[in-house]
């Protein structure tokens, strides 16, 4: 077993060796520009790009003509939201999203607000899901787009996208879905979800960094104003020389996910459940944040009450994880995703996100259970709050002063 152990698969994933192998020829031998129409170097690059497009489309039940290459999911989110808002501005200037969306969505929405658009930010339920009824209630005659993610990046909770898509389709409103975390991990089909725009990232599914895609529905046709102007690549949606090796890698990654999804989801879920049960067996006062039923296979977001998240991460430095504690950010505010679900600030400060994936082993999970158990126990021994709670004090009754 190699130390440190990687358990942060939501942040990024390693490139699958099979993906890397597929990419390598396109750095040197087949290095052509896919836009060069006059020689075999260009033709071969274009062929590879189109094969990748087909592979990505197939994973989500789309047609390859509906895939637009981007630099990654942040760009995809920006292009979907700003591009649609700008194109359909005469139809309306109202958009709907949720408070626990990724910053790439929220900040795109804030940028539109500064341009005079109106945005409704929906509250999420205690289990982290968006209630489709709330989406429906938020729609107005001037609503042009709803952006709701499939799986949340912190708690891994899956939204009822098919129900949301049915509502938006019926209302004639565009549905953008940031499916970065879920694609390749759980089934996602653009037809079943009635999605019009879908953001996808390669590096979250064992492909390379720096490449992503935006699904743009053709029937009925969705139109966008491009963010990046230039040579008119990607049918005018996104100019710029295509990242051929990246695209080949993303295509291969998508193909592997499609072929291995069922087996991998089952295996990763089993490991995640082993981790959860192991921690629950050895430690008291721990809470899983978000729905366990509607959840990505590899996600476990847990609050270890009375232990601060960053201190715990320092203590378990052999295992790479992330935390919703404010101490991991410059803002001193704990995770807005957890807060949106109604998780109290003290428990948000105590949260750890474990992300398991393709290369996680049983041995690594065993090691993690043991290490986390020992370190949480040690930190609780030095926690005044744990001491008070064990002595029967209700810490929520204390009128704490705010030191900040």
């Amino acid at each position: 077993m190699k130390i440190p152990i990687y358990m942060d698969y939501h942040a990024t994933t390693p490139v699958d060796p099979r993906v890397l192998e597929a990419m390598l020829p396109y750095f040197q031998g087949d290095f052509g520009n896919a836009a060069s129409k006059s020689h075999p170097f260009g033709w071969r690059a274009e062929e590879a790009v189109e094969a990748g497009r087909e592979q990505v489309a197939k994973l989500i039940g789309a047609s390859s003509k509906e895939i637009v290459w981007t630099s990654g999911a942040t760009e995809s989110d920006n292009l979907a939201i700003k591009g649609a808002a700008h194109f359909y501005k005469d139809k309306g200037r109202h958009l709907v999203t949720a408070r626990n969306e990724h910053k790439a969505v929220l900040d795109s929405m804030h940028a539109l607000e500064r341009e005079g658009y109106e945005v409704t930010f929906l509250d999420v339920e205690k289990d982290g899901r968006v209630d489709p009824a709330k989406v429906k209630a938020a729609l107005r005659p001037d609503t042009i787009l709803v952006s709701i993610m499939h799986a949340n990046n912190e708690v891994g909770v899956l939204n009822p996208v098919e129900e949301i898509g049915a509502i938006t389709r019926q209302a004639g409103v565009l549905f953008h879905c940031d499916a970065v975390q879920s694609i390749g991990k759980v089934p996602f089909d653009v037809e079943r979800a009635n999605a019009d725009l879908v953001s996808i990232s390669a590096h979250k599914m064992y492909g390379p960094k720096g490449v992503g895609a935006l699904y743009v529905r053709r029937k009925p046709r969705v139109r966008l104003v491009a963010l990046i102007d230039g040579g008119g690549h990607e049918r005018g949606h996104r100019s710029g020389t295509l990242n051929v090796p990246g695209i080949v890698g993303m295509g291969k990654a998508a193909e592997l996910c499609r072929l291995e999804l069922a087996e991998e989801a089952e295996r990763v879920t089993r490991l995640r459940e082993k981790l959860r049960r192991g921690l629950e067996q050895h430690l008291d006062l721990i809470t899983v944040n978000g729905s366990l039923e509607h959840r990505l296979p590899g996600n476990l977001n847990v609050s270890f009450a009375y232990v601060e998240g960053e201190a715990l991460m320092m203590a378990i430095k052999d295992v790479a994880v992330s935390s919703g504690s404010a101490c991991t950010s410059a803002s001193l505010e704990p995770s807005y995703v957890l807060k949106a679900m109604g998780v109290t600030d003290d428990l948000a400060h105590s949260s750890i996100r474990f992300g398991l994936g393709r290369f996680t082993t049983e041995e690594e999970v065993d090691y993690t259970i043991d290490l986390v158990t020992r370190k949480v126990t040690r930190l609780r021994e030095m926690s005044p709050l744990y001491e008070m709670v064990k002595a029967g004090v209700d810490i929520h009754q204390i009128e704490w002063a705010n030191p900040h």
Partner: protein
Amino acid sequence: MSYSEKLIDHYENPRNVGSMDAKDETVGTGLVGAPACGDVMKLQIRVSAEGVIEDAKFKTFGCGSAIASSSLVTEWVKGKTVDEALSIKNTDVASELNLPPVKIHCSVLAEDAIKAAIADYQKKRGLAPTVKADTIKGDRQQLIAQGAIKAGI
């Protein structure tokens, strides 16, 4: 976040972790911070008849910097008189541990914990408080009376 070696040492090998009997007349207890803010420090001192801090213990809920800051001040206050201990400033803690800017509040909390512990001790002994500990709302002895905090911790 990259931390100094001193900070990591105090975090990994914290000095003087533990609790004293808060009912003891010679013990002063400071409890500062708030769970919602992600840091709570409890600092306790045992003061001799001559006004010298003979022993100090802490328990901290907080990040690595908060734990290291409290560990450091327990070392610093030991052997000092109450007045000497009150001269410890958060900036001394921050520079000793080379705290990054976003962690300065941890050192502020450590300074506050010293003041609160001393104020608690002085109040118990009927001495005039040198510094009013204003970081925890309400009175510690009053909180114990109300049952909000157990006297023994």
